């Protein structure tokens, strides 16, 4: 399933943290909640709709539980953004028993078009939560910027 910030009914949001930023993805499935959390990560840096889908990166890793998997997922994206000097706007995620496989699309940072506001240093364990609340999956944490 492909999740686009603009056209998918799941959603992302930011929640307040004094010094940093809280990111939250919400979806009907855990895959979708993770994908939306990734859009929220991009939205801390730039407007996600401004990111073109020129190149893609594959990610594949496992963890012991869903919360640690979210921490790993966000940090993997932060790492790929940092070493490739890219931003991502488009996320395909599949999670099977704490094993995540994803393809993410994006482009090189363009400071004029993206006007990136902050560089994300890392995802944190603060407010880290992955849960199914009444049939809706929520995936969230504070990111250090």
């Amino acid at each position, binding site marked *: 399933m492909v999740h686009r910030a603009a056209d998918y009914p799941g959603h992302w949001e930011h929640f307040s943290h004094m010094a940093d930023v809280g990111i939250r993805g919400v979806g009907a499935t855990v895959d979708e909640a993770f994908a939306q959390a990734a859009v929220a990560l991009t939205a801390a840096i730039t407007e996600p709709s401004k990111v073109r889908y020129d190149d893609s990166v594959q990610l594949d890793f496992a963890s012991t539980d869903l919360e640690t998997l979210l921490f790993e997922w966000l940090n993997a994206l*932060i790492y790929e953004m940092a070493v490739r000097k890219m931003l991502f706007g488009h996320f395909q995620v599949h999670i099977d028993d704490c094993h995540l496989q994803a393809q993410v699309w994006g482009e090189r*940072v363009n400071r004029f078009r993206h006007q990136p*506001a902050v560089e994300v240093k890392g995802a944190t364990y603060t407010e880290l939560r992955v849960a199914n609340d009444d049939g809706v999956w929520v995936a969230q944490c*504070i990111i*250090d910027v």
Partner: protein
Amino acid sequence: MDVVDLTQSSEYTWQLAPRGRMRVPVIIYGNRDLIADMDDKVLHQAINVATLPGIVTASYAMPDAHWGYGFPIGGVAAFDADQGGVVSAGGVGFDISCGVRTLHTGLQVADLELKKFIIADTLYEEIPVGVGSTGRIRLDDAQMDEMLTGGAKWAVEQGWGSPADLERSEEHGVMRDALPDEVSARAKKRQRNEMGTLGSGNHYLEIQEVSEIYDQHTAEVFGLHTGDIVVTIHCGSRGLGHQIGTEFLKDMAQAAHQHGIDLPDRELACAPIRSPAGKRYLGAMRAAINCALANREIITHLTRQVFAKILPQARLELLFDVSHNTCKLEQHEIDGEIRRLYVHRKGATRAFGPGHPELPDAFQEVGQPVLIGGSMGTASHVLAGNSGNDALSFESACHGAGRSMSRRRATKTWRGRHVVDELAARGIVVRSPSMRGIAEEAPGAYKNVDAVVDVADRAGLARKVARVTPVVCVKG
């Protein structure tokens, strides 16, 4: 934060006695207004720190403390390895050795006035800044390890910086006992093309005017006079430090579990200082300190090149370089006994007082310069370490203004363009790749830095020496 939870032990000192699992009290420095403005989570986090094994004397929060992750930002805590003390990645933070250095220029306000736009533009062109920027320096594996061992001294040896700078830096520009082998290949890769980059967020390079002197004698020793122009650089260990912080958070969460440390918050992830995980982190963190020192030295070199082109009469000499996200092994006196302690300062500045053996001769009489960055468009301060602050805070002071508003609320309150225009009307030239970044860093989103340093001064943590105000601000 509700002050009724705390006992006021002196005008600027508030305490919470140990209760529950706390091993030591919490001590917060502030006046009633600053404490009332602090998030409840600052106290909550300082209490959590007070529960960690081997903590000594107290869990401190500086006057600029705010809600961090694990430790509060503005938190200071010392641990004794002989008493099962721990080292915590969350107690240092992601931007290891983030810090501030201030350089004299030998220029006066009038010298800069006609050149401030061209120098702002040239600094913005020459110093890589913002998300996605890369430096011109590329390090191979061997060079990377040399940098991680050699810090600012390595940068000077490469021709990026001046030997005289090293004396004017904590650790004389090199953090000993760094272990580059404990820095992962991913962390090194993340740093590969980020040497000499400023970063983003609250990092900046400012040209500032010394606008007020509070302590004439110390200012004289520091070489600061009203109307002088100085340059201040605020940045850290870039991607390498961020990656180390991320990786060891996970590593230490496992180590804490293995050593039976019951963490009240996963972000307090820590390991006994003498455990393999503790030693690995200390080695990697010290390498990251060297990365930050080298990075600030390279940016200093780039800044000198720009001044040489535009204002060739300028002489950029380092006043001092301080780091405010570290864990360092230091000697402190407790109940008449000298002990070696691992002092975590997360968003707190070391403030060695007069006569400290680690200070250069120039500062032996007055104590070290304590450089406090303000927010964009507001003042910054130079303080000096005080005698007697060992007993107050393990010789530590505040590090900046601290946010009073989230980034999200800031972008809803201000437009970047308006902030730039308002600052321009006050004679402050701002250069940044991101208008949204400017809005997020608007001066009004931060606490009043003057109030923070007043309290640091009156509480005896460090004394006010000079206030500096921005003329040019290059921001990531």
